């Protein structure tokens, strides 16, 4: 029996994080939720499965994660190869999933895992995002492409955040039961990274009270979904993001799926090109808030999901590499006894631990602010709560692009290295690493490229939020035997400060943009170092991991500082010159 939860004790460790107490208390409204109304279809009423106290809730998370561990290890992972080979396909305007994908979704549906974070009154489990994020990681470790369908729970989440009560009661139970899958329909041929350029038109039809959609969308994951959120231009004559609104479209015959992309990886996830012809839709939330508010929220959820996907792929790749290196003999020794091999393996492992701790820290931040936002709809928040909401939202907005950028890039590197460990056999289709390598590639592209994540994260770096986090982390108690690492981190911070001071001294935006990624990566290393150190404080087994990570990260940061100091603003001209047409 392979269980992806029980065989990875890091997950349980993060489930036991001290901040969980506050999260569950908020999520369960002090364990006083009494849901009389129920909109779901299950025979279970909300009150029948609510937790009675903190320990009860965490025990449920733990055991439900074990169920997910079982499904991912026993059903999803064994199906992955078949799903990759068969892929999703388009026939007569209908998308068909691979047989393995159908089986996977069915198991997840039967286990009631398609509305993990939704309130119980809508048929969900009312679990924190942190727990859901663990599921995303496990699902991705089993089959990265399935995460694109499992992770679409964010669509229902966005409906819950912004739709009116009637819409919520009507649609969320369908998401939560798994009866309806979702899609977020944003991208167009000429509006990719720049969503302000979205052109798909929506006009209001007085006679029916519905909106009508007309236009083309492209690169839509699961475009065949039953329920989709569409970003469309409702304000005629506008050209920017302020003319865009969010609409809910239910699948019918008015949309033609013109083709699905023939992709390098994640074959199980259909990527659709869609033509809308007078397709009916209803408005979600307020007009003109589509891009500036709702998509930003939706996108942040999706970015966290892709981070989990990247970490899941990295975990799978690392395990494959480790297994191979422990079995393969050359020159009379198993190959993981050779320094060049064990260096790679150890770097993979420490990198994954570092990313994972940042990933779950981010998820916890999201939990606190989103749940407080939810509570704000029910009652007025106290001044302390308002402050807490604001603080954690800022933190989540900083960490989300940070982890998305860092984890997706690292995941590509780890998949690359996993093939390297395998040598020639890794280049064949006989081992799963080549699939992992192909699946990994998209993570640093979709939901915003790494370059865009850097732009989003640099705000946190320059706004003083990074310093605030540093103060917070250094104020926590560290045991005497770990203090030497805290000192190292302080040196890294000094070095980083000199880097940013140097860059900012030129007051040149293009120059700042040029080095932004280096700056963001430097902060990422310092933050992950601190988080790992706090993990080591809670559990000694992270001590060596932290030591190894900090050693490498410190050297990497020094490297980046050197590049920054070597390449001054004037030198950018050489860069432009060489690639001019």
């Amino acid at each position, binding site marked *: 029996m392979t269980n992806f939860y029980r065989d990875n004790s890091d997950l349980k460790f993060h489930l036991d994080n001290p901040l969980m107490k506050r999260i569950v208390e908020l999520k369960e409204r002090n364990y006083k939720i009494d849901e009389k109304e129920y909109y779901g279809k*299950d025979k*279970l009423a909300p009150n*029948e*499965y*609510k*937790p*009675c*106290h903190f320990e*009860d809730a965490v*025990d*449920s998370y733990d*055991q*439900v994660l074990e*169920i997910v561990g*079982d*499904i991912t290890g026993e*059903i999803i992972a064994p199906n992955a190869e078949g799903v990759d080979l068969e892929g999703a396909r388009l026939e007569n305007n209908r998308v068909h999933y691979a047989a393995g994908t159908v089986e996977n979704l069915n*198991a997840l549906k*039967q*286990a*009631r*895992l398609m509305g993990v974070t939704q309130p119980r009154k809508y048929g969900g*489990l009312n679990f924190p995002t942190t727990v859901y994020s663990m599921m995303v990681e496990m699902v991705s470790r089993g089959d990265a492409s399935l995460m694109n369908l499992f992770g679409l729970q964010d669509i229902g989440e966005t409906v819950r955040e912004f739709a009116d009560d009637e819409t919520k009661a009507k649609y969320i139970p369908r998401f939560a039961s798994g009866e309806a899958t979702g899609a977020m329909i944003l991208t167009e041929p000429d509006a990719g990274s720049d969503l302000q350029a979205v052109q798909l038109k929506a006009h209001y039809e007085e006679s029916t009270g519905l909106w009508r959609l007309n236009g083309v969308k492209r690169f839509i994951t699961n475009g065949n979904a039953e329920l989709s959120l569409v970003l469309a231009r409702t304000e005629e004559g506008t050209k920017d993001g302020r003319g865009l609104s969010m609409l809910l479209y239910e699948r019918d015959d008015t949309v033609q799926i013109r083709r699905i992309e023939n992709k390098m990886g994640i074959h199980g996830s259909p990527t659709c090109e869609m033509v809308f012809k007078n397709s009916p839709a209803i408005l979600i939330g307020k007009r003109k808030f589509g891009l500036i508010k709702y998509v930003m929220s939706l996108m942040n959820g999706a970015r966290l999901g892709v981070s989990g996907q990247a970490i899941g792929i990295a975990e799978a790749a690392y395990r494959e590499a480790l297994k191979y290196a422990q079995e393969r003999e050359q020159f009379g020794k198993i190959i993981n006894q050779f320094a060049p091999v064990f260096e790679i393996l150890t770097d993979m492992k420490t990198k994954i631990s570092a990313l994972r701790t940042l990933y779950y820290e981010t998820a916890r931040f999201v939990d606190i602010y989103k749940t407080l936002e939810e509570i704000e709809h029910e009652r007025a928040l106290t001044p302390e709560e308002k402050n807490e909401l604001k603080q954690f939202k800022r933190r989540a907005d900083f960490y989300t692009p940070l982890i998305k950028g860092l984890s997706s890039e690292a995941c590509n590197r780890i998949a690359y290295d996993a093939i390297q460990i395998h040598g020639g056999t890794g280049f064949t289709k006989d081992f799963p690493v080549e699939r992992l390598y192909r699946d990994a590639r998209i993570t640093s592209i979709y939901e915003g490229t790494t370059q865009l994540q850097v732009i989003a994260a640099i705000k946190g770096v320059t706004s003083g939020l990074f310093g605030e986090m540093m103060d917070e982390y250094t104020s926590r108690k560290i045991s005497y035997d770990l203090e030497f690492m805290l000192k190292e981190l302080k040196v890294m911070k000094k070095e980083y400060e000199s880097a940013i001071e140097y860059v900012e001294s030129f007051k040149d935006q293009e120059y700042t943009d040029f080095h932004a990624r280096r700056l963001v990566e430097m902060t990422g290393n310092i933050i992950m170092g601190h988080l790992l150190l706090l993990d080591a404080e809670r559990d000694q087994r992270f001590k060596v991991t932290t030591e190894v990570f900090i050693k490498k990260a410190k050297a990497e940061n020094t490297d980046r500082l050197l590049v920054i100091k070597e390449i001054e603003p004037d030198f950018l001209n050489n860069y432009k010159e060489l690639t001019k047409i």
Partner: protein
Amino acid sequence: MAFRIIVLAKQVPDTRNVKEDAMKSDGTVNRAALPAIYNPEDLNALEQALQIKDRMGDAEIIILTMGPPRAADIIRESMYRDADKGYLITDRRFAGADTLATSYVISKAVEKIGNYDLIISGRQAIDGDTAQVGPQTAEKLNIPQITYAEEVVSVEKGKIKIKRRLERGVEVIETALPALVTVHGSAAPCRPKNAKLFMKYKHAKTPTELQTLDDDYINQSVKNKLYLNIEELSVDDLDCEAEKIGLAGSPTKVKKIDSVVLQGKDAKIINDSDTEVKDLMKELITNHTLG
């Protein structure tokens, strides 16, 4: 009236993951060293029951298991997958039962539950591998039995059609209900546990378990919620004859236990000509492998 299905399920030591300490020096199973699991073919049986419930809508699934107090896990695990309730037959006086004594006790419990349409169980348990308890129970209850079931083709009140998996093919047969069906491992695997049902039933307890529970919240909620009570059945509840239960009711006597170590040798490959096959047969008969 709801269609009532009784599923016979057993908690067994996980003999599929046998390590060195799995056997005691006297040749009996060292239960402490092996994790206790849901007998695999009983899970196939539960899935068949659940599919009938899905199809019919108005059906009730009752789990019946026999074992030590910790076998209540089997009932909870079934409830997490949508079984409705369960009975644990537990009493020190049942200890040492072979298949005859076991099927006697089970048939008594089935009679006590009463009013059933179908009894369904796994073909055999991985600890004893006898495949006797199901058929013996059917005989004692004097109802038809269908063994080696792979699929319930159709079912309605009073009638069931079953596809059987046999050595050289399949067979579809129909019988009147009530009947007992034993399910083969080639049947559909059991569905995963349902997260919501897990949370609903995780505090379900037997009276024995409640005695050692010190969480007031949970104690209280079990008392308030009828569905969280797992009933225990003892010798007295079932009105069993003392000489038919436990060691006394078990004619099976173990004469001797041999530890057989199978040694893998090179395979012998022969061509598919009549002479070579004939020669092989001759060789096997001569060395007493056959005949």
